[in-house]
């Protein structure tokens, strides 16, 4: 058994709002090994970003609280760390890349100041050596003319360049885990392909684990080893990418995969869709969260929450009708009785 780098157990992050408790993350458990790339997919509002922010306790809002569960990173329980220790953890062992490259960087400081500041925060290092390392990191992420870019302001760089700077900052401290929250969503396809390739190369070079959050299944197919599908704060399916692609089990995963227009589809044939919209996270109660949009739903989906079961090696599904013994086939009528 390989060493676990990150272990999350029953994580629950709730937002306490005036109109009720929004269960943004509701009992998520998973673990990651060194050098693994895990993809988290789901629609907006399903709790992907809150989940990733909870790992390093970056919840900005006062109303958002981790109410239950443990996050163990490299053997230490993150929830027990003091503010000072958390500061040390963030940026050095766990780095984060955010969605919008233009707002990640502070517009009033030069790239050089921001990078050096971040390096000096973690290490006792003088400006000159720090600058050298930073320029090396910029060159590593494929920025042409790193000396010149090092001395420019963020607004002088394009979106793709800014994202490269953000990645360069993330790898500066050689983190063990990079959390990339929709790193390519704001970028063009050609830039997206370059950034993904870059992340993969850096991973091979330094053995970093990557937790990548995305809503684009194509990105998952391209770089991930394992994938986790989230819906309304819960993990509904978890498997190896190849296994998930060839043998998806959860009705939501089917819907998600089918609603992506593919280049091989016949044009203008109606795309299959998932009817309805995701539930209000303040109103989800007992039962399966997906039941209102699921065409296979039965009475039992209303009454009890499905548990994660292993249908075959390493493939977990949370659906009442999927287990080692029972099997629901896509497109066929649900003959299992609830």
């Amino acid at each position: 058994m390989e060493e676990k780098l990150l272990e999350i157990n029953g994580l629950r992050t709730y937002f306490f709002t005036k109109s009720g408790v929004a269960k943004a993350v509701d009992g998520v458990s998973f673990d990651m090994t060194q050098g693994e790339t895990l993809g988290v997919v789901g629609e907006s509002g399903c709790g992907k970003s809150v989940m990733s922010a909870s790992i390093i306790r970056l919840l900005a809002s006062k109303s958002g609280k981790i109410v239950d569960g443990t996050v163990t990173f490299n053997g230490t329980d993150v929830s027990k760390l003091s503010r000072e220790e958390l500061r040390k953890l963030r940026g050095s062992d766990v780095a984060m890349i955010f969605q919008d490259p233009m707002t990640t960087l502070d517009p009033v400081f030069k790239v050089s100041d921001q990078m050096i500041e971040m390096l000096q925060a973690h290490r006792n290092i003088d400006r000159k050596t720090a600058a050298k390392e930073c320029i090396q990191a910029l060159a590593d992420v494929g920025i042409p003319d790193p000396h010149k870019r090092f001395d420019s302001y963020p607004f002088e760089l394009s979106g793709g360049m800014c994202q490269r700077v953000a990645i360069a900052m993330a790898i500066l401290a050689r983190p063990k885990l990079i959390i990339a929250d929709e790193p390519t969503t704001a970028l063009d396809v050609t830039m997206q392909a370059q950034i993904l390739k870059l992340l993969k190369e850096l991973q091979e070079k330094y053995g970093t684990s990557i937790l990548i959050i995305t809503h684009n299944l194509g990105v998952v197919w391209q770089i991930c080893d394992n994938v986790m599908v989230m819906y309304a704060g819960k993990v509904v399916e978890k498997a190896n990418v190849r296994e998930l692609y060839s043998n998806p089990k959860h009705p939501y995963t089917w819907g998600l995969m089918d609603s992506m227009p593919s280049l091989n589809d016949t044009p203008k044939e109606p795309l299959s869709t998932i009817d309805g919209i995701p539930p209000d996270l303040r109103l989800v109660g007992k039962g399966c969260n997906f039941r209102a949009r699921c065409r296979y739903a039965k009475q039992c989906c209303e009454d009890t929450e499905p548990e994660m079961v292993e249908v075959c090696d390493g493939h977990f599904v949370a659906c009442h009708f999927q287990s080692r013994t029972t099997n629901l086939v896509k497109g066929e009528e649900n003959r299992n009785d609830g």
Partner: protein
Amino acid sequence: MTDNQSPLLEVKNLTKCFPIGNRYSFQRKQLYALDDVSLKVYKGETVGVIGESGCGKSTLSRCLVSLHKPTSGSIYFNNKDISKCTGKEKKEISRKIQMIFQDPYSSLDPKMRISQLVMEPFTIHNFTPEGQSRVDRAIELLQSVGLDRYHLQRYPHEFSGGQRQRINIARALTLNPEVLICDEPVSALDVSIQAQVLNLLIKLQQEFNLTYLFISHDLSVIRYISDYIAVMYLGHIVEFCEASGIYTRPLHPYTQALLSSIPPSSPFEKKERLELKGDLVSHIGKVNCCPLASRCPHCTERCKNEKPKLKPVDGRHEVACFLYEQS
């Protein structure tokens, strides 16, 4: 579609410059957002426009609905030059060409009810639908986009992104337009909702015999909805082709690179990537070389000194590249 027919919408040598830099300087630089763009759209077809951000897709769509005044060149609608029309005629044309914007959150006035939003175009154009009241027409439109009459009294904030985009579509359809310009209508939506809106757009096209100019940066969406595809790069159309042809036989090096950077459709697929080095070059000032010259793997001396023109290679398949000029 039919070749002898004249195009419904025709763009001829359209150029749009934006002045940049100091307002009082003697030599203000010009940013060429659109540089000599020509495009024909026939009735009932969908032309998809694809390209990276900053390539001029949105400027093109804004020129078409007269939100920007073109620097030079002309736009013909039914053989009538839009820019030369004034007054009543201009209003008539703007009634026929409607637009759907990208962001469903900022394109609806938060202080207006849905009924006001959907019926606003009637007031502006002093238009009453034949044989029915304005309210009835509004209800009918809402139903055709998958909403219902009880939504009329609500405010935009009560709707999700996908529903708001439906309201935008209903709003664009109120005046019985002939052409709908869709500027990235699904890029702000989730995958499952995106499929719903795409299906709706196709249904409406068949129902109302609409012509679409569909702008997107998502290749699979464009492939799905379009009959013809125009690939834009730095204010130029570099390739124009039938939708199926562009994927089976991409000619321009930029199109080839764009296609190879689509994420794979399965984890088993390993793609050969054709990489373009470097970033977009700036389009400030007039360029006299091929816009792709600095990034193109096939770049020759000629590409650096001369700009290739969009030339037909095979039927309606046109490409602007010297590589295909000899044959």
